Structure formats: structure tokens, C-alpha cells
């Protein structure tokens, strides 16, 4: 069960405006694990994530989600694939004109045939899962950055997806709030068996939650393994520099 591949990235190349940022990247994400995409700023973490969810057109390669290719998927296939995962964007991307509960209820309204009271109740349940039950009627502008991110996780989970993609969940959060979010991710992974794919560079956070990680550098994968393992037994100088925060060594590598 643990070994079952849920996402397979095969020789993915991606970039913008003629500039290649990732070339020939291949890796697997296994069912139920918390998978971390690591890398410095500008290493292509977000690009990789956004290609995996089909937001940007990849240059070449495939992203198989439960065996179906996300790259270039259209129509019913794309819709079926989109329902398999939820995404939390870096800034939360909650709609400012709706309360937290309405934000969570929006995908339910558009994608299910549940009656109104069921949607409202389900939105509250999801918010309670992320610890925001009592803030259901707040507007995003009336809450803090950490709450916005947690609400964004609740919205991403609204349709019970098996996979959650999180883009920089810890960015801009204080250590406590960031640790709370880590706890939430671990709990969701443990209780609901949700597979997480997280782009991050917060070392403290990834040791706490990551089962496996890849480190991106120069458009490719510099290392793969569990975060703690990468820190303790770095396979090369760049990995060592990254985990020990040594800019000198990183420049030399």
C-alpha cells in the first residue's frame, strides 16, 4: 500500500517564454506520503508544482496521476483529474468578497449536487477540521495570514481529494503558526490518508513533516530521499550546503 505510486512524473521539462527551468525531471509520489519539493528561490519549485497540476503547459514529458496524464488533458479527463486533488496557493487565494465558509462551500456548490444545508454543514465541518470552526463567518480580510492558509487548505479539501498540493505553506508565517500548519498536515495525512505534495524551503518544517523529498537545482533533481537522511548524509556538496545553510559551499558546488 505504502509503495503504490499515486503520481508519476516522467521526463518533465518546463519553463516560460522559451526559457527552460526544469529539464527531464522524473520522480514518483507514493500513496499516502508527504512529499516535499525542495529547492532554493528560483530553482523551479513552483514551476514544477504548477506543471504537475496542469496550470502551465509543460514543454515535454508527462505527469501521471493515478495513471492518467495531466499534461495536455482536456475535457472530461481533465475534469476527472482535477477532482483528484486540491491546491493551496502561496497566498491562500481566498476570494475576498466571500466569508471563509462561503469560500469552502464554493467548490461544493459548483461540483456537487448536495442541497444547500448539506453544503453549509460540510463547509463548517471542513473548517472545523482545520481548526477554524468558530471563524466560518469571517471575511479573509478579517483574519490572519495563518488562518487564511488553513482556510485555503479546508477549501482544497472540500471535495475529499486524495492529493493536496501546497505551495509554500510556511511562507510568511511565524514559527508557531507554521508549526500549527505542520501539525494539521500531519493529522490530515494520518487520519485521512491524504497524499501531500508540498513545495517548500522551510527546513524546520520539512524535517517535521516530510516523508520523502527531492531537492531541485539547476533545472534537475540534485538529491532524493527523506529530509533527515538528506541532511545527515548529503550525497553531494550542494545538498550539504543547502541543509547546513552554507552559501560559500553552495557557490563552490
Amino acid at each position, binding site marked *: 500500500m505504502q509503495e503504490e505510486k499515486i503520481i508519476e512524473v516522467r521526463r518533465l521539462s518546463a519553463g516560460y517564454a522559451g526559457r527552460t527551468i526544469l529539464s527531464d525531471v522524473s520522480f514518483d509520489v507514493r500513496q499516502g506520503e508527504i512529499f516535499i519539493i525542495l529547492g532554493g528561490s528560483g530553482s523551479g519549485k513552483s514551476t514544477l508544482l504548477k506543471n504537475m497540476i496542469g496550470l502551465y503547459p509543460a514543454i515535454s514529458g508527462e505527469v501521471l496521476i493515478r495513471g492518467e496524464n495531466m499534461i495536455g488533458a482536456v475535457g472530461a479527463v481533465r475534469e476527472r483529474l482535477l477532482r483528484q486533488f486540491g491546491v493551496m496557493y502561496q497566498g491562500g487565494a481566498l476570494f475576498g468578497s466571500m466569508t471563509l465558509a462561503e469560500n469552502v462551500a464554493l467548490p461544493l456548490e459548483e461540483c456537487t449536487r448536495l442541497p444547500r444545508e*448539506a453544503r453549509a*454543514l*460540510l463547509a463548517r*465541518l471542513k473548517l*472545523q477540521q482545520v481548526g477554524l470552526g*468558530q471563524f466560518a*463567518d469571517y471575511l479573509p480580510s478579517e483574519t490572519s495570514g495563518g488562518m487564511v492558509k488553513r482556510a485555503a487548505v479546508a477549501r482544497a479539501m*472540500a471535495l*475529499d481529494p486524495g492529493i493536496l498540493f501546497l505551495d509554500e505553506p510556511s511562507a510568511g508565517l511565524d514559527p508557531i503558526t507554521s508549526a500549527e500548519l505542520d501539525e494539521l498536515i500531519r493529522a490530515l495525512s494520518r487520519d*485521512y490518508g491524504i497524499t501531500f505534495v508540498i513545495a517548500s524551503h522551510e527546513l524546520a518544517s520539512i524535517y517535521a513533516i516530510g516523508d520523502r523529498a527531492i531537492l531541485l537545482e539547476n533545472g534537475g533533481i540534485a538529491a532524493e530521499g527523506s529530509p533527515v537522511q538528506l541532511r545527515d548524509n548529503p550525497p553531494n556538496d550542494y545538498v550539504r550546503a543547502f541543509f547546513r545553510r552554507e552559501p560559500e559551499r553552495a557557490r563552490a558546488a
Partner: protein
Amino acid sequence: MATDSAGQSAPLRVESSGSETILALSGTLDDAAVALCWSRALGAARTSQGPVRVDCARVDYCGGAGFALLVALAEMAQERKQSFVVDDLAPQFRSMYDGIDRSKLGQAETPQREKYGPVASVGQAVADRAAEWREETEFVGEVGVGLAGLGREPRRLRLREWWVMVEKAGTNALPIVALISFLMGMIMAFQAAMPMRQFGVDLFVVNLVALAITRELGPLMTAIVLAGRSGSAFAAEIGTMKVNEEVAALTTMGLSPVRFLAVPRVLAGIVVTPVLTVYSMAIGVAGGLAVMMMLGFPLATLMHQLSGSLRVDDVLAGLIKSFFFGAVVAGVGCLRGLQTGAGAAAVGDSTTRSVVTAIFLIVLLDAVFAVIYYQLKF
């Protein structure tokens, strides 16, 4: 076995034994299944005469919607003071169901939002308006000072960025201004030619078109087009900068956002609008002449009539206005941009407000000029 209207096997069977109502759920309780049986399940719970038991022995998956159904049933039973049990839910779902704290679900806090009574809201509106006037007056003053400062020190204008503004607001507006002016001239000539022909004075349509276009419609239409495409762009651009805290960054660097952002744009507006206006006048008159030629007048006659009727004063009268129109359009766009509040909707609001205010001020200014020109017999 109960079936729903579509004939599929429903995930819910309602049974009763004695006073007890048994809701037997089965299969995959995802949103589609729950949507099918939600109202029937709650209906059964609402009419039950005794305890309610939910039998989940045959449930193989329970998603969020399934939990929502169980919670709704539990709430219903609690409301009707009936006992409620969920039986035989698979252990992994059981622990999730037990993790739901129903007592807290209903207790959402109501956010504290300021609410005013009628008197206070009137007062607040007046205070807001007064603050806005103050802001607007300061803005006009600061733009004036900024422009004067540029006159003394022209090198402070960031020329490369300014040229881009001129290009966007001016050069790129040429096609739309041309199209609208040409059509205005044509329409006016055509509409006037028919009634005037009845009196045999249709040659004087040239006078009418030339006068109306140069004194009024050329400057007015150009300014309105610019308000729609450039003033609004300034408002959206500066508004987005404000939302992204770029305006705050300017302030903390000790740079005045008005001088840095608004002054070059207002200058661009002042430079570009008169040029576009003259262009619009020429094309508008050409549109009128085109119609007259279609009606059978030779070009030489029309040109003779035109040179006899159109004075330099008429063109000047339109041109002078256009400087002010340009300043108003660009200034209002920048002002509304700087007044932007927080969020994506605020940018939309300031864009709307910039267009509405600019058009209103253009028309108002035009009326003022009409009075002044009349008094001066210009």
C-alpha cells in the same frame, strides 16, 4: 430495496422496528451518493416516532459529505430529543466521526463589524467626503507644484518611462480616436444634410460640421476616449501598485507618490491630448467632407466653403480646452488610483470612479469654457 427516481440503487434504506427508525446506509458515501439520499434521510429522521439508528455496516467509504449527513441527522435527533446512534461504522471512519465536535459547530463567532445608526452614518459620510475633498485639493496642489518643479528641473522627469506613458496614452490611441472622429463627422454631416437640403442650404453643412467638430466634439470625444482607455489604465495601474504596497514603498523611501507617479502621467496627458485633439478635428472634418462628396459636391467647392467658414480661432478654442481636458483625465486617473483601498475589488472600484469622475469633470469644464468663450466673444 428502495430506489431513487433515477432507478439506481439508492445508498439509503429506511426501516422501522417498533418505534425505532433504522436508516441503513450502504456503498460509497461520497457527495454524489449523499446528494441522492440527503433529503430522504433527514425526512425520515424528522418524522421518526422514536430513537434513530443509522446502520453503517455496508458503508465502504465515508467522505466529507457522508459525515455531514451523519452530523445533520444527529442534530435533528437532538433537536427532537430522540436518542441517536451510529452503528457499525468502519473503525477508520468511526474515529473521524468521533473527532467531530458537534457542540462547537453552531458556535461561529460573528465578526465585529462597525455598524452606524442613521445619524452617525450621515455624519460619517460627511466626514468621509470632507476628507476626500481635502485629499483632492492637496492632490491638485501637489501636482501643480510637481509640474512647476519639472519646469525648473526638467531632468527630474524619468524620460524613458515617460515616453512609454506617452506612447500608451497617445500613439496607441490614434486608431480609436480616428475611427470615432471620422464616424462622428460622417454622422453629423449626414443627419444635417437631409433637413438642410429642404431649404437649399446643404452646402452650409460644411460650416456646421467644421464648427461643431473643432469647437466642441473634437476635444470632447478625444477626452472621453482618453478617460476610458488611459485614465482608467492609470487608475488600475496605480491602484494595483497601492494594493501591492509599491506606493507605500515609495513613501518610505521619502519619495512622494504624487510626484513620482502622478506628475509624469499628468504631463503625458497634457502633452498628448491636444495632439490627439487636432488629429481628431482633422479626421472628423474629413468624415463630414466624405459624406458631402458622396452627396455629389465636388471637393474644390467643399474646400472653398471650408476655408471660408473655419477660422483659426475655432481651432484654438478647441485646442485650449484640450490641455485642461488632458490634465483632468490623467489627474483623475492617478488620484483615483492613489485612493484605492485594499483588495482586488478596490482596484475595480477606483477604475470605475476614475472614468465616471473624469467624464463628469470634462462635461462640467466644457460648460465653463462655453460660458467663458461666450463672455469673451471668442
